[in-house]
């Protein structure tokens, strides 16, 4: 830019038409590069693919897909910034979608909307960075940040394969131990052969094949505020459901029946994400 001005002054001063030619060439080049830069970021459609489980405060990988809807011109050196995090694309061929991943950390739980992606590029000449905005229109439910809840939980981490056998008694599981009859046990459980050798009736104690359902009520969990309680609750939902134990929620007056499937777990987490926000 400065050199163009300098040469422009020189051209006017000397009346040298060759200098005028150089200045015209540089001005023409600037005009064309400006136009090319404008075309470069034009007609780019953006979309975002978000994973099912997004937790507040935890870095999550999003996939940004950009499609160059121009007919002929490729786009170069595009940066698509979504929620303040950039993803970069080197070359976007016309008509062919390209994807890039970016790590995004959402600060707060709740339903959030990614309205737009800021598309920017220094192409063709690194003097200016041009910006435009592409609509993304993606909805994301950010679950509360899970917080480890020590105590009152059996076994190890289910994710790590450390889940121990359930401690609860049941009717159809494996034989856990033999105890004295205390009344109330089913007759089916009386170990007749052993009872004959002892003075008291002996009963078989079997493990439970399924854990008993748990109904979590976040308001009753410890924690300084609602968000902390929800964080504990989120942890519990994950830990329990992954351990195969049916989990339900009691949110105020509303009760969500226990279940152990993944969709159910995500439903619970979704409820926790928006709890207290409506």
């Amino acid at each position, binding site marked *: 830019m400065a050199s163009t001005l300098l040469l422009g002054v020189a051209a006017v*001063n000397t009346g040298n038409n*060759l200098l005028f*030619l150089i200045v015209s060439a540089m*001005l*023409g080049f600037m005009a064309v590069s400006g136009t090319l830069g404008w075309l470069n970021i034009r007609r780019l459609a953006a979309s975002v693919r978000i994973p099912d489980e997004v937790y507040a405060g935890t870095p999550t990988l999003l996939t940004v897909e950009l499609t160059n809807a121009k007919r002929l011109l490729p786009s170069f050196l595009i940066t698509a910034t979504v929620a303040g995090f950039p993803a970069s694309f080197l070359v976007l061929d016309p008509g062919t979608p390209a994807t890039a991943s970016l790590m995004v950390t959402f600060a707060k739980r709740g339903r959030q909307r990614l309205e737009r992606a800021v598309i920017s590029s220094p192409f*063709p*000449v690194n003097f200016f960075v041009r910006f435009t905005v592409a609509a993304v229109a993606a909805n994301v439910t950010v679950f509360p940040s899970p917080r480890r809840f020590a105590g009152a939980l059996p076994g190890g981490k289910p994710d790590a394969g450390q889940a121990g056998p359930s401690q609860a008694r049941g009717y159809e599981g494996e034989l856990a131990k033999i105890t004295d009859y205390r009344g109330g046990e089913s007759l089916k459980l009386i170990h007749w052969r052993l009872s004959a050798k002892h003075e008291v009736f002996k009963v078989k104690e079997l493990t439970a094949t399924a854990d008993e359902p748990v109904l979590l009520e976040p308001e009753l969990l410890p924690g300084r505020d609602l968000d902390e309680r929800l964080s504990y609750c989120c942890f519990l939902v994950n830990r329990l459901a992954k351990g195969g134990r049916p989990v339900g929620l009691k949110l105020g007056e509303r009760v969500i029946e226990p279940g152990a499937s993944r969709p159910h777990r995500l439903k619970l987490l979704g409820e926790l994400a928006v709890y207290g926000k409506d």
Partner: protein
Amino acid sequence: MVRISSVLNALTLSIAVVGYLPLAPYLDFSARWFFPAALAGALLLYARGRSLPPWLLTSGSIVLFLYFALGFNMDRLIVVTADLLVVFLGIRLLGERSGRNYLQAFALSLFCLAASSLFELSALFLVYLLALLLLLAVSLVVLTFHAHDPKLALSRFELKKVLAVSVLMPAAALPVLLFLFVLLPRTQYPLWDFLNRAAPGTTGFSDKVNPGGSASVSEVKSVVLRAVCAKLPESSLYWRGIVLNGFSGNAWVRLPAPPEVSLKPNRGEPVHQEIYPEPSRNPYLIALNVPRALGGLRYIEAQDAVFTGQRQMDKRLKYQVDSRLADGIAVKGGIDRRFYLALPERVSPRLRAEGRALAQAGPEVAEKLRRLEAFFRARRLSYATVGLPTGADPIDAFLFDSRRGNCEFFASACATLLRLAGVPARLVGGYRGGVYSGVGGYYLVTEDMAHVWVEAFVDGRGWVTVEPSAWSAGFSRQPGGAVRLLRMYADALGFFWNKAVITYDLEKQLALVRSAGNRARNVRLPAGWWQPVLRWGAALLLLPLGWALYRRSRRSPEQRLLARLRRVLRRRYRLEGVEQMGLYELAKRVDDPNLREFVAIYGGALYRDRKLERGELTRLKELVACLRNSPTAGGKGHLVPPPLEGGG
């Protein structure tokens, strides 16, 4: 994969070479050789992936600057500046390869090319400029990738695409270049003049004719002028420059002539010429004999049809001349015969005797001229440019001994003999002939065509042209061969360059504006009964436009938005009957989340009978844009087949 830094290095070296080459012939010895050395060093460093440390380069720059600055004075200002530019460019190539340094190398190369225009104005400049523009465009784009990630490597395919788009830029910039070149403001006079001290060589056009000064005349082919005019017969190509009317010793010179009233020629074929003289220090404005009037610059006209420019001719300029192909200049009243009968210091007895014999031919000048021609022809004089007589009395030697000479000998001998015979005579200096360029439509006149002929005063007719060289043997020009033709093409190219670029000026810009304005003003409807028809026709054509605007202003933003959505849907999904379908029906047919959201927002407002809010409207516009831009292939939306009606 190709490393982007390697591409950038190769481009930078090429740019530096293109900047250096046009300037190289004008550089000092040390600068001229420093650059190739630096280039070789840079190549070596690039190959090893290293660069010289900044402290070394900075101190080297300072030392070299001082060295060149010592040779600085106002006359060598441009040369020293050019030297420094080239040296700094060389140093820059050796340094660290960062984005800033690359840019500096580019700028220095451009300045080098710009500086070359202060030395040389040839059309070759355009070639360098275009090459540099192309390389710069590509380099700046590659530099952008380099700035993104210096270690970036692109596949050959990707690189090809990047290069293709970068080459597109200078190609598209060319028309803009031409447009801006015409439009950029120009001043008629430089603001500071110190940069414009170019020193063109003298053309050798002499205001003194002294035959016998040397034994040979060099045939320099340098261009004197180009004259745009129609093709003329060879015999009428006499370009008048100067009239030599008296003597200084034995040499013919131009002396202040006594007043006389010469009339503008009004006989003979009129010829209009546009003349582009090469820069020279000679003030005479050369034109086809006999010039009547000049235009295009300020001049002084002498009574003997000699024109001199008022400003220096050391720049490229042009002027127009109206000439008549007449064989003389009429004079009103008489002339100072005594002045035109003066003789040189030395006239040999043989010459004097010949003059006396001629004087006895009678009072008729025509008869004397016939006798003179017969005398010349009888002597069997030959026209030559080498082996010319020299010595104490070259004219005598020419006529009576060696009998060979060039036009200066013929004209001097002829005019002297005429004066001895009592006929007032003078020499006319200029050029004879010219090579016509069919491509350019102009005559090319070169220095080797310099010529001198004679004008003799005839009572009642005025000054009559006499061509004594034609009385010789061997006075004709050889037609050129293929080389000459090629040369004419090259010359035509240079001529157009000078005409279109070098001499382009403010007046031309103003003339362009004026003529455009005049043309616009002079647009008149053809007269007749259909003038009103044309007017009404134009009005009728405007009506639909007005109606469309009116309808547009009548429709609410919501309606416009809905129309836009329907248009987009029709185009993207090739849906028929979009206009008749309801919004919800459309959403069902086209399974697209964007459309669903659109319908939800739009319907939500419409069915509650309220207008769309500003935010909603923006969002809807975004959605329509998304719909338009989203790809159909692999995209989100797809058509749901309509339910079968009637069942069965």
